[in-house]
């Protein structure tokens, strides 16, 4: 952590991190506290009877606090809190913990053991009950915190719009956030393509990851989170706040432009939204995008013990298609494995899951998963009018060879899909894009994974983020080769990785001949603005300059040097 302005006591502290997106926000900080475990060698209480009473009382206090929070919350959050309050208020679990204390177990250990008994029972039951295990553990953490005299883990109920900070945010943490009061996210750990960053992008929240020191800032301190600059200003002075507020206003102005994506001279480039759920589809369809370029179907499969049924999948895919009406939706079939483990599809014994049976490769071991998914998509296609059927595009992830592409195309067409494609995320596929495109109707570049496999760099290792940079010349070369194959064969080549969300990269991709860019809906206005202020010839010159550079920073600098000055200023591209 670096302290800004050591010579100037009036300057605010600056914390540095990796910005996700470009947003800016000024708001008080709310720090998510980690859970404390019961000490491993906790001694029995001196007065077992009094300690047992205290345990019962701690459960009651947690139940009361949760009920209180539930009463002030609404919707799904209120339901989760009410259910959690009921668990904390349960006589059976408190009585079991008290019994263990009387038998000579330390109080915090007794609570942990009593809860673990129910955890084991619920886990064994599976299904809905297994999903309640998170609530049980949340109650355990709160009761243990009271017994140890430490702050309760998690966030208190937010009462004002706040920037939420934590060491990292687990999916359960983000699910419990009251989004009406979250205006930004900052984490000490995590990477730019991790869970927190994806959620932030989806919700259009300014976000900073890998920001050491943020959880040491006291709760309630006003901070200015500037994702474009990759920094958090702690307690900024009034003039800085005013300047950042102006920038936030300018960004809202950009969002008012709803014209289709195109260069200044009318070369069309489709701007699309990445989505994961039917709710995402509803939100994205309400914005001026040309459809969805990436519907991540694995979200439907996450956190479950068994795969969703044919009927369930048909319903969800159908509602996503309906949300977008006459706009196209590119559905990606199940992309599980590696950083997206599924209870029923993860190979337990893989030493390198990113190089293992993941994505389309699951068809080798679990062919029914893909079979059911294609059957559901086929059922949706069959229910569409002839004219609308062409809006359903379906692609497979992690395809490495033309033979795999042909295999997928055969299965998908047999299921009744008319527009079949594959993802280009493996260097082998980019190098053989021409042969792969000969088998399918389109391809889409996943730049996160393509960079991971090209640079041999784990996506989740934040400390290697410089190698994962989509501006790396080797990655740009593979993108260019894929785009060229598409131009030559007259078939669409899209990009649906994070690099599509970078307005400067959008210019490069347009110049390379990419036909569509899919990103979080919040990133679309900046890409639309950047592309509209350059001609196709200018985009080509920018792409050539980036490709000619010797390193990632040089490639970005070369592109930036040819970018219109109004775009650089408005989007604070540096």
């Amino acid at each position, binding site marked *: 952590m670096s302290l800004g302005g050591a010579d100037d006591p009036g300057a605010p502290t600056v914390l540095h991190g990796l910005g996700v997106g470009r947003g800016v926000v000024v708001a008080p900080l709310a720090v998510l506290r980690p859970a404390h475990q019961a000490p491993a060698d906790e001694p029995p209480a001196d007065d077992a009877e009094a300690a047992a009473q205290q345990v019962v009382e701690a459960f009651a206090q947690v139940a009361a606090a949760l009920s209180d929070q539930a009463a002030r919350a609404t919707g799904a959050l209120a*339901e989760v809190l*009410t*259910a959690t309050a*009921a*668990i904390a*208020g*349960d*006589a*059976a*679990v408190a009585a079991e913990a008290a019994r263990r204390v009387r038998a000579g177990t330390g109080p915090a250990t007794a609570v942990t053991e009593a809860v673990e008994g*129910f955890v084991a*029972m*619920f886990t064994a*039951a599976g*299904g*809905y*009950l297994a999903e*309640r295990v998170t*609530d*049980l553990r949340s109650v355990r953490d709160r009761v243990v915190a009271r017994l140890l005299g430490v702050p309760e883990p998690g966030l208190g109920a937010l009462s004002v719009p706040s920037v939420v900070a934590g060491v990292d945010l687990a999916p359960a943490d983000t699910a419990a956030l009251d989004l009406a009061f979250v205006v930004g996210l900052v984490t000490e750990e995590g990477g730019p393509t991790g869970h927190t960053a994806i959620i932030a992008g989806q919700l259009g929240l300014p976000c900073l990851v890998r920001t050491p020191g943020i959880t040491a800032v006291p709760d309630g301190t006003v901070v200015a989170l500037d994702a474009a600059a990759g920094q958090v200003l702690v307690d900024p002075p009034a003039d800085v706040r005013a300047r950042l507020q102006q920038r936030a206003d300018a960004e809202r102005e950009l969002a008012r432009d709803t014209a289709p994506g195109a260069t200044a001279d009318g070369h069309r480039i489709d701007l699309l939204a990445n989505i994961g759920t039917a709710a995402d589809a509803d939100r994205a369809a309400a914005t001026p995008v040309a459809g969805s370029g990436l519907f991540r179907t694995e979200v439907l499969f996450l956190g479950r013990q068994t795969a969703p049924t044919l009927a369930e999948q048909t319903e969800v895919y159908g509602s996503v298609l309906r949300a977008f009406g006459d706009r196209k939706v590119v559905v990606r079939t199940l992309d599980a494995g590696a950083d997206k483990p599924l209870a029923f599809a993860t190979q337990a014994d893989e030493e390198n899951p990113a190089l293992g049976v993941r994505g389309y490769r699951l068809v080798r071991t679990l062919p029914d998963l893909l079979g059911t998914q294609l059957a559901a998509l086929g059922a949706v296609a069959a229910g569409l009018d002839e004219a609308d059927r062409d809006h359903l595009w379906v692609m497979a992830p992690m395809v490495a060879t033309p033979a795999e592409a042909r295999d997928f195309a055969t299965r998908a067409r047999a299921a009744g899909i008319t527009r079949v494609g594959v993802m280009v995320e493996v260097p082998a596929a980019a190098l053989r894009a021409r042969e792969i495109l000969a088998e399918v109707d389109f391809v889409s570049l996943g730049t996160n994974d393509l960079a991971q496999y090209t640079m041999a760099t784990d996506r989740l290792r934040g400390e290697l983020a410089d190698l994962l940079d989509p501006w790396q010349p080797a990655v740009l070369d593979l993108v260019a080769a894929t785009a060229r194959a598409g131009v030559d064969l007259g078939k669409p080549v899209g990009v649906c990785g994070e690099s599509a969300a970078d307005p400067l990269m959008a210019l490069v991709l347009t110049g390379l001949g990419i036909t569509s860019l899919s990103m979080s809906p919040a990133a679309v206005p900046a890409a639309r603005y950047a592309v509209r202020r350059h001609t196709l010839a200018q985009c080509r010159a920018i792409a050539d300059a980036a490709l000619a550079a010797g390193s990632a920073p040089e490639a970005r600098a070369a592109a930036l040097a040819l970018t219109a000055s109004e775009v650089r200023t408005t989007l604070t591209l540096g």
Partner: protein
Amino acid sequence: MPQRRATIGTTTGLHARPASKFTQAVAATGTDVLIGRDGQPAVTASSVLMVMGLALQGGEEVLLSADDPSAEQTLEELVALLGTDLDAS
């Protein structure tokens, strides 16, 4: 020892929210009530965790029992409550 049979009226089953409503009603009676499937060990009906742990499905039949011989009326009311759709409101 009074006993009553009841049918679960909540079509989605006795998951957290309906189970919580039922167990709160049991606790409010002040009577020790047990709930369970035929031929299986019964659990405390005022414990939401125990009741959730039974994973009772809509339409299933369960047995309610109480130690207190004067609890006939209480059990009748609980049978009626279990027969309604507790997920509805």
